[in-house]
């Protein structure tokens, strides 16, 4: 079965979905991510879907479920890179990505996660240079 790698970057888990996931593989990813959150104590999950040509109701539900499960495990989920055509199609399909935060790209997602964490008083991942994120 095709397995999507879950990458740990500091306190963040990053997943870049590049394959046309069958339903079984989508459930597997959901499970892998939960396991890795528990195992690493990660506080943020970034899911890059810039390579995905479609998001149907099954993948949409996977994203919502990942966000909900992460929250229970004290991690915030941000989905990045959604293509415009995918966003338009999701709306027409009637799918609201419940509880899923989105951002344009990984840097913006990191900024969102850093802010969320700041509120809770935990430092996360600091990006130095021009893209400085408030700590």
């Amino acid at each position, binding site marked *: 079965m095709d397995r999507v790698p879950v990458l740990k970057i500091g306190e963040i888990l990053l997943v870049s979905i590049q394959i*046309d*996931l*069958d*339903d*079984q*593989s989508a459930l597997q990813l959901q499970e892998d991510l939960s396991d890795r959150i528990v195992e690493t104590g990660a506080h943020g999950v970034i899911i890059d879907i810039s390579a995905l*040509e*479609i*998001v*149907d*109701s*099954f993948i*949409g*539900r996977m994203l919502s479920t990942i966000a909900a499960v992460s929250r229970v495990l004290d991690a915030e989920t941000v989905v990045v890179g959604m*293509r*415009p*055509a*995918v966003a*338009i*199609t999701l709306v*027409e*399909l*009637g*799918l609201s990505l419940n509880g899923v935060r989105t951002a344009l790209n990984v840097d913006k997602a990191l900024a969102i996660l850093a802010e969320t964490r700041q509120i809770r008083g935990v430092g996360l991942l600091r990006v130095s240079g021009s893209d400085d994120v408030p700590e």
Partner: protein
Amino acid sequence: MTEPQVLPIADDKDVVRVRQAVRVIALAAKLPLVDQTKLVTAASELARNTLIHGGGGHATVEQVHNGRRAGVRAEFVDTGPGIADLGLAFTDGYTTGSGLGLGLSGSRRLVDEFDIVTAPGEGTRITVTKWAR
């Protein structure tokens, strides 16, 4: 113009193959990107229904022409239980399974033509068409 392509729908991976076949033909028919995306998404929903609710079946995908415009037609056929109450089945959020209940209603919104033939015990045949602009 290409031959109609017939694809079995017997498992998860077949649903992926149907998506990919529809994409290839939508590209060949020069559907705009957004319409490709809509059609492939609708096909994914309907192929999954054929598998999950219809107990498996097949899809036929082909390029079509109506004299003025090119388009793509996809048909999903199963010999499963059929649908007794279409009004209910096409209600956003209605599901007899564990889905989101958006497959039928949502995919109807995503295509230009949507045709369904079904009866209890007699399976389900859904044909959708998307035209190039």
